[in-house]
């Protein structure tokens, strides 16, 4: 019975899923042990939560880019929406909900929901377009979101929320608190994010994406990607299908953003600019389109790489750039590709031979 269960975990369809979960859980356990025995430098410790956040955002983006096949250059915009929603929700609830864990979870859910709503609003025009035009509009929306949050002033007192735009005209009653201050963003945020919640969020994101992919929606999403006209011809509504992938992707970025925002005492809106969107896209492409385990690994390595290269000081970002280019050149090299395919084939044959004998 037990053996049956284990062999089922590793069968074709479940294998990639099992590997992803195991990877995350094992990494979590190792890091927890290292952290409690003092084996982690404070710098690495400070990166634990951000790595979780970017992993979740990248998993979401992989659904959008890898499975749905639409290039999205505005994922940071959704992270931004999630982050500042999370900060505001946590700030407003600070006095009424004193349990930080509960408050964090509420903030994450709120971040995910608002980002999903934003994804829906943006998705209506975006998904009417195709190819690079769609990509540029997601870029434009990312810029618009950044620009709007940079100019938003939000505060609250006993009379509720007060908002103003472009200029700070918010005047608060006694005991009031500013949540967002235009280009300065959020300051004095209570840091309630934890690594454990980050890992749980990754596991949730994996479950959501995997469960969706191996279902009616997943087949439709990949069908629309592979052949739009054929998908229509078998009665699939392409717009709704793409919208679903877009919204889930946005909400995961929102959840990730909320966790990210509550990990720092100050956060400026400029943090989530075009470069951040590109960064998340790089994680996804290097990890492999449609490959969740790859996304997790590449996000972790690429987030840590600049820190690991810290001893090289000024050269580290240059090396980072070279690594990016070289990886792309190597993985797309026809000669190396055929070599790799042959190697894989001989490995499979070797395994089969061993089984038969």
């Amino acid at each position, binding site marked *: 019975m037990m053996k049956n269960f284990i062999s089922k975990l590793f069968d074709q369809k479940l294998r990639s899923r099992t590997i992803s979960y195991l990877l995350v859980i094992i990494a979590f356990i190792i890091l927890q042990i290292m952290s409690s025995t003092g084996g982690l430098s404070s710098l690495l410790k400070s990166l634990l939560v951000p790595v979780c956040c970017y992993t979740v955002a990248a998993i979401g983006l992989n659904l959008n880019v890898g499975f749905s096949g639409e290039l999205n250059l505005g994922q940071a915009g959704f992270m931004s929406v999630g982050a500042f929603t999370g900060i505001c929700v946590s700030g407003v609830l600070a006095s009424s909900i004193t349990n930080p864990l509960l408050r964090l979870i509420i903030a994450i859910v709120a971040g995910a929901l608002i980002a999903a709503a934003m994804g829906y609003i943006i998705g209506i025009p975006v998904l009417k377009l195709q190819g690079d035009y769609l990509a540029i509009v997601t870029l434009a929306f990312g810029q618009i979101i950044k620009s709007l949050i940079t100019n938003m002033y939000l505060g609250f007192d006993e009379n509720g929320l007060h908002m103003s735009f472009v200029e700070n005209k918010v005047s608060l009653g006694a005991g009031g608190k500013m949540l967002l201050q235009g280009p300065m963003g959020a300051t004095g945020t209570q840091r309630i994010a934890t690594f454990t919640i980050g890992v749980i969020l990754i596991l949730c994101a994996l479950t959501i994406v995997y469960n969706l992919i191996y279902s009616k929606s997943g087949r439709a999403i*990949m069908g629309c*990607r*592979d*052949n739009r006209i054929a998908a*229509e*011809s078998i009665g*699939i509504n392409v717009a709704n299908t793409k919208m679903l992938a877009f919204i889930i992707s946005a909400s995961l970025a929102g959840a990730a953003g909320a966790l990210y925002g509550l990990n720092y005492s100050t956060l400026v809106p400029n943090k989530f600019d075009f470069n951040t969107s590109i960064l998340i896209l790089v994680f996804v492409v290097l990890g492999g389109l449609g490959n969740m385990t790859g996304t997790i690994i590449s996000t972790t390595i690429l987030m840590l790489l600049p820190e690991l290269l810290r001893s090289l000081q000024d050269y580290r970002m240059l090396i980072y750039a070279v690594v990016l280019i070289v990886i792309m050149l190597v993985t797309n090299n026809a000669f190396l590709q055929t070599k790799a395919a042959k190697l894989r084939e001989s490995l499979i044959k070797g395994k089969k031979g061993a089984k038969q004998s």
Partner: protein
Amino acid sequence: MSENNIDRSLILEVEDLGIDFGGLTAVNNLSLKVYNNEIVGLIGPNGAGKTTVFNMLTKVYQPSRGTIRLCGQDTARMTTEDVNKAGIARTFQNIRLFQNLSVIDNVKAGMHNEITYSPADSIFRTRKYYAQEKQIEEKAHELLKIMGLDSLAELPAGSLPYGGQRRLEIARAMATDPKLLLLDEPAAGMNPQETEELMDMIRFVRDHFHIAILLIEHDMKLVMGICERITVINFGMMLASGTPEEIQSNPAVIKAYLGE
């Protein structure tokens, strides 16, 4: 089932169908009727507008003139997706499979509208999800068996040989549970033996599911072998219509195919 019990109702009724691309009239004044449980051939020289007719029937192109009625229902305001839901499924001349999905997932994708569970059901893996997935799994295997693809179910669709891909397209179209199946050159690229097998499969599909089939084909052996009626078009206009024997002896058809 005896001959008399078979439903012979009118499935597809096309009247004065026409389409213009810019100033060019690709199809004009085409009328066509397809009854249930029959196999009808649509033939004509290259460029005659056969695939354009299919594209209008499935609303990939909007017709400029004329009406298309499916079981008495006008399809004028329908999209490709609606037309499929109303009962027309098709295959494509240049194969359009979901290359990266497995063979069986291609068929399951065809059952999209039969499945009623929501995305939330799939995320939370509810009972409804498992029940319906199990049901369509069985149905998909059944279809694959009919098309001789069951042993290849888990392979990526793009890795199938040409003939297999054409048969998989038929299986996927049948998965949508159509009343009318449109086959666009189903035997293209097949060798004589494969074509022979395909003819049996098409007949079996018709007899088993009791649907109407309209097919475009250049292989005259297939057309004359399985079609009960044939419509010939040339330069977008109807040239002749009748039984295979009538078409074979029609002087206008012979002239169109062989030239003066």
